[in-house]
């Protein structure tokens, strides 16, 4: 199947509602359908996706969330997002929403934590607000909002991405984008959580996780997306794990863990602060839509919608949402597909795979693959009597 892009909007977003037509269960519906399709691909037999808990598992009136299972041949992981309050914090410590990633073996599937179970240990846990950031953490989310889902089940490059964002004039709100994607380079599903910045100093974060051999590890995005005044968005970014082991060990050749091609990262700090920007693709077909970030210090996330992209049955097109056209300031610059990374030493230089010019005197010069040649060829075996008595070092001038 090809890319789908599906949108729904609500005049009064009610994330705690358990109605099948409201945001929480519509997200569950889309993820369930995506899971069924990718699980049916034989190559995904060892990395199936599964909904463990959805919106209807909530036990409290202000609780909501989900638990998804990210299958893996060795170490399946559960991704849990849950919140216990409609009142959102305005920084990472005042937010009650949590994104957790933990081994399935560390999970107790019970009614604790508002119905979403508990981990005896997590691999990663971030307080991941959803929503509205008045300075006192109120009001509770009761704004207009939308749910936008991109999904692609192309074998080997599957991804599922949802964005929750407010609509309207209120700019004290935050978009929340979660991307799950497969890369042939790693053994399981990679995760990118991006929350945008409405004001400088407010709550922004980008958390990425991928696999090093059979371990889920924290990751960063490379190449570094453009920042601030560049006003530029690029395609070609991927994940790099913040670890020095496994496939990311020093001295290895590391394949790229490329994000899906339709996502562009960078910075356009002065566009629509509500993060609802739209521009026609100046380089070809399609339309760019802004999913996250608007102010400096935050990485922007834009989505390039190919013409003719269809929504899931019963959903609307991305164009049905109330985007505002951005006429200027932005630059789009795709990258040539980055090649594999040849990792250097853990630090440098190590005089095994990396020789610096800090060559440790004569002994270091003789060990340096380039400098050592300058000592050869004069009749000796290196240094001393082999040197020419005048002129330049040797050999020289010989292509």
């Amino acid at each position, binding site marked *: 199947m090809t890319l789908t892009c599906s949108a729904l909007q609500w005049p009064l977003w009610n994330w705690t509602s358990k109605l099948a037509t409201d945001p929480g269960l519509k997200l569950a519906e889309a993820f369930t359908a995506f899971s069924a399709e990718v699980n049916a691909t034989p190559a995904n037999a060892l990395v199936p996706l599964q909904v463990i808990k959805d919106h209807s598992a909530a036990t409290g009136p202000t609780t909501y969330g989900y638990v998804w299972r990210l299958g893996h041949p060795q170490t399946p992981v559960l991704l849990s997002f849950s919140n216990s309050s409609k009142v959102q914090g305005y920084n990472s410590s005042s937010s009650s929403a949590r994104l957790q990633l933990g081994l399935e073996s560390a999970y107790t599937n019970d009614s604790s934590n508002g119905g979403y179970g508990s981990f005896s240990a997590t691999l990663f846990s971030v307080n991941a607000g959803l929503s509205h950031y008045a300075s006192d953490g109120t009001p509770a989310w009761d704004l207009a909002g939308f749910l936008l889902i991109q999904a692609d089940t192309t074998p080997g490059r599957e991804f599922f991405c949802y964005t929750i964002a407010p609509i309207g004039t209120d700019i004290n709100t935050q978009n929340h984008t979660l991307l799950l994607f497969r890369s042939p380079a790693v053994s399981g599903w990679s995760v990118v959580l991006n929350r945008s910045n409405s004001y400088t100093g407010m709550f922004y974060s980008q958390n990425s996780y991928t696999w090093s051999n059979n371990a889920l590890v924290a990751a960063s995005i490379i190449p570094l997306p453009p920042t601030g005044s560049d006003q530029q968005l690029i395609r070609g970014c991927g994940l790099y794990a913040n670890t020095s082991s496994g496939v990311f060990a020093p001295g290895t050749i590391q394949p790229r863990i490329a994000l899906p091609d339709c996502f562009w990262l960078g910075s356009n700090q002065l566009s629509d602060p509500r993060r609802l920007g739209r521009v026609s693709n100046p380089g070809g077909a399609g339309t760019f839509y802004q999913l996250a970030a608007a102010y400096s210090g935050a990485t922007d996330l834009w989505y390039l919608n190919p013409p003719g992209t269809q929504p899931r049955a019963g959903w609307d097109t991305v164009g049905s949402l109330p985007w505002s056209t951005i006429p200027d300031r932005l630059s789009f610059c795709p990258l040539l597909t980055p090649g594999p990374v040849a990792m250097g030493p853990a630090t440098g230089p190590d005089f095994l795979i990396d020789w*610096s010019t800090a060559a440790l005197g004569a002994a270091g010069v003789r060990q340096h693959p380039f400098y050592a040649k300058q000592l050869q060829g004069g009749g000796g075996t290196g240094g001393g009597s082999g040197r020419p008595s005048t002129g330049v070092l040797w050999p020289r001038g010989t292509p």
Partner: protein
Amino acid sequence: MAATITDLSRRGDQGFALPALFGEVAGHLVTWLTAANDQNPTQLLSVLTGPTGAPGFCGWTLKARLAALSGGQPVELISQWVANLSSGAVTTHAGLASAFTAGSALGGHGSLTGGVGTTSSLITLPPQPLPLGAVVAYSLAAGQEFFCFAFSQHSFSNRQAVALLIAKDVVSAQWHLSLTDMAGVIATVAWNLARPQVLLSTAFRADYFSSAAPLMLVRPAQWLPITPTVFYQQPLPPVQWWDPVALPADLALYNRTFTSLGYIKPADGSEWLQLGPSRLVVRLKDPVS
């Protein structure tokens, strides 16, 4: 397809070696440039002024006439790397030839405005007995041609430079010109074909900005275009598209800066030599596979 390199390093006790070094490089450049022009008859590289063409100054003013047209005329790019042999001041610049004024500036190199460049870096003049690490690297592989001259007066962060980098942009198949000053500041000029406009750059598209771990050798080496910002241009420019500009396959980035002539052996068996202060490395041995 590894590059061909020539070691032109010199001892430091033979007097002020820089002019003679540049003179020697000029010979290599002319040889390569003649072959490169023969291979690319629709594009023409030329040396407007060489190291001996401007008394009291030492360096190059180069011109690349592209096959690409702008306003019906071939696009012409110019780069300048010129050291003042009295003050040590280095003028580096890259831009469009339309902003070049031939004449007495820089001892006869002429004046290039617009574009990007610096005038704040220095070479070290006599009497310091500094040795010179110096390498010329080039390739004439079709579509992957380049010529690079990098040298280092010492290992500090203000005495290393890529004085010449002439390379095909592998995206547009047009020449582009680049250099660094003595402090690692890049100046690059290229031409975007698909949406015709000049592309200026002062930085590589880095995977990782730090010059410490993780150390990564990455390809293709691509430039970060300077885009008009809201702070510097009114009225605001329309939404733009930039084609990438990328260096040939024998060139890559390694994120250790100011380590001219460092040597890197990745796990695939290839071997690379660092050229200049700004992450550029050149392949001396192909991968073993």
